């Protein structure tokens, strides 16, 4: 048996052993997702969409064990006043969390609602993911919809007074976790969702978010210092008229992280910003894959991604702006930049535009290079030590992505983590 065959058998064995839930409101959606997955098959190395990232450890039968690491800095968002929900190896912890009662919103868990037949999330679960499967297949997201074990179901009815903070704790070396969150933001309502912490040795998370007219959702995520992490995440957002979705991700280390963001701007005058700052050292592989579809008038989208790479780290960016026929007055912007701190690291990018409307302004840029020697010389000539000067310039490089975080307190916390990373050099 060839190696490839062994791997495929391994993947199908994993699938055969997993069971799709047969009862409750999510059962039909899970069944559909499973059928979808069977049709698509798991991602393969030869797939164009996986040209720069190897999917095998994400699809293999068992997760590669990852050491549980204690983050000396503690949970990043603990200083903020937030409503905290804690998941240990993907299991909701009642004792560590602030509970499920919340003013202005309905908050439930996927696991505890399963026996109910009628639920508001029924029309959303798996359906945004399904829409996001064309024109590019995302089998790992369908896999998630079929087999997700836990997640929050959040229906935001009015503007929330404080952010909801999802904090993950990695407890077991072999944990393999599938989380699926569904968020619905009502017309005119606003919410902020924070995600932080090490989820598991291997994790697959999906967020489906529907934002009604004039609603706003902010999503801020910090993927931590658990370097042995293997993670694939998908965010599917559907934007109605005048709605707004902003997502920012900080990624530090991780042997394999693939973050996919799929946004469907179907309402006129909607705004979508997706940004990311990632810093990696050594056996770091980080992939940002973004697909934004403009399907309405006057949409504004921004993609801002900055990567700092050293000691053989790899940064990947695959971004796309699709402007459908009739999506006039679209304003699309995309920038992906990498700072390579040494000669071993690499940056692989595919910034794409596909435009079928003539009255639009779309631009993209992508650059890659080392620290500007002249700027370094300038700082050194003014008495700044070499390390410090490099750190200063690195932070300056990351600042465009960081400025996408509107909340100053949160931006401050993220900045502090980046400074810490630069000082530790890891």
């Amino acid at each position, binding site marked *: 048996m060839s190696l490839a065959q062994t791997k495929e058998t391994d993947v199908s064995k994993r699938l055969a052993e997993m069971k799709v839930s047969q009862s409750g409101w999510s059962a039909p959606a899970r069944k559909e997702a499973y059928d979808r997955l069977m049709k698509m098959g798991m991602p393969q190395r030869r797939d164009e969409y996986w040209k720069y990232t190897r999917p095998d450890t994400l699809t293999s039968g068992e997760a590669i064990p990852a050491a549980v690491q204690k983050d000396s800095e503690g949970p990043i968002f603990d200083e903020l006043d937030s409503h905290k929900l804690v998941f240990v190896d993907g299991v909701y912890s009642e004792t560590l969390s602030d509970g499920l009662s919340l003013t202005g919103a309905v908050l439930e868990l996927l696991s505890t609602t399963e026996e109910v037949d009628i639920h508001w999330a029924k029309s959303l679960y798996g359906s945004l993911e399904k829409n996001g499967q064309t024109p590019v297949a995302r089998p790992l997201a369908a896999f998630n919809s079929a087999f997700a074990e836990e997640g929050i179901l959040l229906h935001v009815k009015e503007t929330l007074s404080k952010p909801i903070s999802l904090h993950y704790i990695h407890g077991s070396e072999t944990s393999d976790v599938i989380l699926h969150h569904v968020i619905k933001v009502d017309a005119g309502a606003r919410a902020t969702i924070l995600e932080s912490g090490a989820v598991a040795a291997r994790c697959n998370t999906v967020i489906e978010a529907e934002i009604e007219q004039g609603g706003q959702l902010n999503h801020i995520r910090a993927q931590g210092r658990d370097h042995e992490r293997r993670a694939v995440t998908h965010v599917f957002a559907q934007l109605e008229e005048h709605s707004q979705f902003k997502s920012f991700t900080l990624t530090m280390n991780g042997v394999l992280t693939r973050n996919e963001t799929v946004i469907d701007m179907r309402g006129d005058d909607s705004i979508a910003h997706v940004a990311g700052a990632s810093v990696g050292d050594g056996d770091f592989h980080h992939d940002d894959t973004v697909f934004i579809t403009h399907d309405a008038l006057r949409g504004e989208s921004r993609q801002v991604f900055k990567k700092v790479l050293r000691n053989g780290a790899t940064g990947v960016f695959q971004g796309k702006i699709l402007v459908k*026929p009739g999506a006039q007055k679209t304003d699309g912007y995309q920038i992906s930049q990498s700072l390579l701190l040494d000669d071993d690291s690499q940056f692989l990018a*595919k910034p794409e535009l596909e435009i079928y409307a*003539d009255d639009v302004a779309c631009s993209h840029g*992508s650059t890659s290079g080392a620290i500007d020697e002249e700027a370094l010389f300038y700082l050194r000539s003014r008495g700044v030590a070499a390390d410090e000067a490099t750190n200063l310039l690195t932070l300056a490089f990351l600042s465009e992505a960081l400025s996408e975080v509107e909340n100053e307190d949160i931006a401050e916390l993220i900045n502090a983590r980046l400074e810490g990373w630069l000082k530790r050099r890891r």
Partner: protein
Amino acid sequence: MSAVTDIEVKDGVDQETVDAVREVGGTYKYGWDTEIEMEYAPKGVNPDIVRLISEKNGEPEWMTDWRLSAFERWLQMEEPSWAMVNYPKIDFQDQYYYARPKSMAEKPKSLEDVDPKLLATYEKLGIPLKEQMILAGVEGADEAPVEARKVAVDAVFDSVSVGTTFQAELKKAGVIFCSISEAIKEHPELVKKYLGSVVPVSDNYYATLNSAVFSDGSFVYIPPGVRCPMELSTYFRINAENTGQFERTLIIADKGSYVSYLEGCTAPQRDTAQLHAAVVEIVLEEDAEVKYSTVQNWFPGDENGKGGIYNFVTKRADCRGDRSKVMWTQVETGSAVTWKYPSCILRGNDSQGEFYSIAIANNHQQADTGTKMVHLGKNTKSRIVSKGISAGVAQNTYRGLVSMHPKAKSSRNYTQCDSLLIGDKCGAHTVPYIEVKNNSSRVEHEATTSKVDDEQMFYCRQRGMDEEEAVALVVNGFCKDVLQALPMEFAMEAQQLVAISLEGSVG
């Protein structure tokens, strides 16, 4: 009547631009055909046809074997489908792979022996094959002095080379310029050494097919230290119906040599689509420089998308020697389907590759074109400037690769690709791949007009121009440089293209 006449033009798009595109994409000027007695090989492709083509060209056995092995490879390959082009499946057995004018059965000894009808065809196209005729320089709108210029032409009519001008004068300089079929016989050592060394036999589906069935094409060898005394030009004409044209061009620029090479293509207006799959290989030794310019004006199909040429071309330059330099310039206005990525392998240290492209797609045309810059040597530089214009219901895609290998230290790439859409039924797409594997190299990919060279902008602004004027000057200045290098009949089209402003463009 072109489709662009019926649409409402958006603010910020110059009427001049629209007119220029209409002019270019409107009625096809070269759609007539020549009634001439042709000799065909039977339809379809198989080892016998491959042998027949080889035999007709009087090739030695090694060449026949080379073709046959390519054919074997081709049978095992699949047609690529990744490009953003849609067309009915091609029946490769429903094509003629060899067609030549009857009068060419005996190769004419000199141009005087060539069928007058053939010469008339080329004259009608504006390409004089008679040596006493010297092309005049471009009559610029700004009344630039008219400068006489000699151009040597190799004209390829369907499957065979009709004639090559100025051979004697070129010989004096040591330059070899002849049809590839002649080169296989006269200079086998050069052909053996270089053919397939840049575009390997099994490179891709169309290149492999070409390796098996190419009928003719041009061959150029510039000896060390020679600056080719005149521009060399190949003119391709598909005349016969249902005939695929498969030409092969091989250019070898030895150490320290220089050549400027021009290529033009036209075809008659036919209802059925025709296949064109060419391969161009360029070898550059140390300090050599090659400029390769193309105006591709194959029949694009009518305004309803009927007919036209399917253009699947593999062009690649291998900068083997240090400090060698290659420049691809293309003006793509024709063909129903274009699949073309002139590439540069920058192997030698300090070598340079440049790619300048203007692609205009109108009506039902589909263009998927771009370049690959593969940086292997140290201090290598590449520059990509691509302007795509879509009108009607056309689709225009820029697809490119910039790859900095770990050993390509201190290399540099700058890419700019802009697209302009005229009308809301067409599409413009950008698919760049960027792979950077060392940190001393810098790669920049941009898709905005505001990012014209800052220094040039500063210079213009300093002299009192407003930003808009400055951008126009810098962009047009660059365009003119490229377009003026084109020969007479191309330059007329080029004049119109220069009028195209980039206002209102998207990335």
